[in-house]
């Protein structure tokens, strides 16, 4: 028997009248909102659920504790569901992403010095123009023999990392050579930018806003523009949880759907800001949270291609393709298969949206080029090799 099966079997049956208790891990970010609201707004209680929300300090902890069965579900980076299925970084675990928590919410923030250098070379406000200016700045520095600038994201298997990499590559920079990509936990981001150790970061709300408020960062752009807005965080669950506790799972899906609708409703904005600013949730100033929400992560309703919360295999395939492109996943066929299973809309259709389900589009549109066709990810990879540029300053 697997450990998670053992854990599930000792639970009380869900129909004994008591609320069913679910432990859910989250990271202090604005997009944990639907989970927090599901509990605080009574949406979970109405479904007979008691949510035990556990704040975690790292995505690695979120994944380990979901995989080991400490958590029934978790606030998770979208690519992490695919990585977990492939066993990248840890055990192979059949994790799925049956509910997309949000679209967007990440921004690229640069130190004032780098932001000024970019602005001096044109800059502008679309990803292509800012990228072109950045490429000039970086090339000039490398030509002078300076160290490549250090850019930070939050985890290797994150949309932040793939958005940043896509944008850099589109600007003609090699993300593995022309810049140094590191991971900095969001709570340390302001310090890392203050000390100049990190010159730019792709990070989720409210941390770019916090860097801006602290005067150590200028927000260059929202990465929602990098490609068709798609899943940023997802609800990660183990397949075993869905199989063994189908009623609890369905109840969780329904209460998240309602909580997400509440989060999306502008009429609830002040209450939402207050809930998120709480010391036990994110614990940063309300004004910073409000600014981050105004940047517009989307939580519910119609997205660019179908309902926002409904997983779309094309989005999973797109992320898996990025993982293959950058050498994070080495077996393309396995990665594509894992992505299709992780981002299957079946559970969403069965619990929330049977009628809303429509023919699912298979394309993703990056900001700068041809559409990605989920039916043929290999074709896209053939035209987008990992390294677009030759060595700029010799082999490192």
């Amino acid at each position, binding site marked *: 028997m697997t450990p998670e099966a053992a854990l599930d079997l000792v639970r009380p049956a869900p129909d004994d009248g008591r609320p069913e208790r679910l432990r859910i891990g989250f990271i202090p970010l604005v997009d944990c909102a639907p989970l927090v609201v599901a509990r605080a707004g009574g949406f979970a209680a109405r479904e007979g659920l008691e949510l035990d929300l556990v704040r975690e300090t790292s995505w690695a*902890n979120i994944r380990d504790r979901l995989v080991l069965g400490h958590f029934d579900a978790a606030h998770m980076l979208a690519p992490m569901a695919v990585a977990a299925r492939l066993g990248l970084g*840890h055990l192979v675990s059949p994790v799925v992403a049956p509910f997309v928590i949000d679209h967007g919410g990440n921004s690229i923030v640069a130190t004032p010095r780098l932001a000024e250098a970019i602005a001096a070379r044109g800059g502008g406000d679309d990803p292509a123009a800012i990228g072109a200016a950045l490429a000039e700045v970086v090339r000039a520095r490398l030509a002078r023999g300076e160290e490549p600038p250090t850019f930070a994201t939050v985890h290797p298997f994150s949309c932040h990392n793939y958005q940043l990499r896509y944008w850099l590559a589109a600007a003609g920079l090699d993300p593995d050579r022309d810049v140094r990509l*590191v*991971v*900095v*936990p969001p709570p340390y981001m302001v310090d890392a930018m203050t000390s100049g150790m990190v010159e730019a970061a792709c990070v989720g709300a409210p941390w770019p806003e916090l860097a801006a408020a602290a005067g150590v960062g200028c927000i260059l752009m929202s990465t929602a523009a990098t490609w068709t807005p798609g899943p940023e965080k997802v609800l990660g669950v183990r397949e075993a949880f869905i199989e063994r506790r189908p009623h609890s799972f369905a109840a969780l899906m329904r209460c998240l759907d309602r909580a997400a609708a509440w989060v999306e409703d502008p009429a609830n904005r002040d209450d939402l800001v207050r809930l998120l600013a709480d010391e036990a949730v994110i614990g940063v100033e309300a004004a910073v949270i409000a600014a981050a929400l105004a940047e517009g992560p989307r939580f519910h309703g119609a997205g660019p291609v179908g309902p926002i919360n409904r997983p779309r295999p094309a989005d999973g395939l797109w992320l898996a393709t990025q993982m293959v492109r950058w050498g994070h996943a080495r077996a393309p066929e396995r990665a594509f298969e894992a992505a299709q299973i992780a981002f299957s809309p079946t559970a969403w259709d069965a619990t929330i949206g049977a009628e809303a389900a429509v023919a699912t589009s298979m394309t993703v549109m990056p900001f700068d080029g041809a559409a990605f066709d989920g039916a043929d990810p290999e074709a896209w990879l053939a035209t987008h090799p990992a390294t677009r540029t030759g060595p700029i300053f010799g082999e490192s």
Partner: protein
Amino acid sequence: MVDRSLTILVIDENPVRAAILEDGLRDSGYTTVVRLDTTHELLRRIWQIDPDVILMDLANPSRDVLEQMFQVSRTVKRPIAMFVDQSDTAMIEASVDAGVSAYIVDGLRKERVKPIVDMTVSRFNAFDRLARELDQARTELAERKLIERAKGILMKSRGIGEEEAYALLRKTAMNEKKKLSEIAQSVVTAAQLLG
């Protein structure tokens, strides 16, 4: 058989726990133990130290920094596996339950690593127990002081002896199905309000 040649890095922001762990490792014969208590320039320092095994507090947000370094970064010389052997779920569970993550350089055999991880897990658990006991001791001390104050108030206001005052508190606590310290708190609060 303990392998003294291994370099073990302990990353922990709690200096007491880190010291307990370091002592334990040294006592077991591991002589090369390095302690990092700050996350500043973590990557560069790990690179310099070049450890075979890294032990890290699970509550440290820098776990994600190591994920990057070990899984995908091309700047690291050697690939590293987490938690010893990926198939050893029991050891991983014990680690996670204790609050420790262990990162091991690939190629180290399990027999060589297991005693280190076992020792770390038991030290983390022992530290946890100590911290809990300390917490409990503090609470008990505070409660005892509270009861003393409540007794004093009762003795003065009702003109009774110490034993009688204590008996009165106990009886009230039993009747109201509350803790003795809760009743004592009520007495102290009431006395403050009534002046």
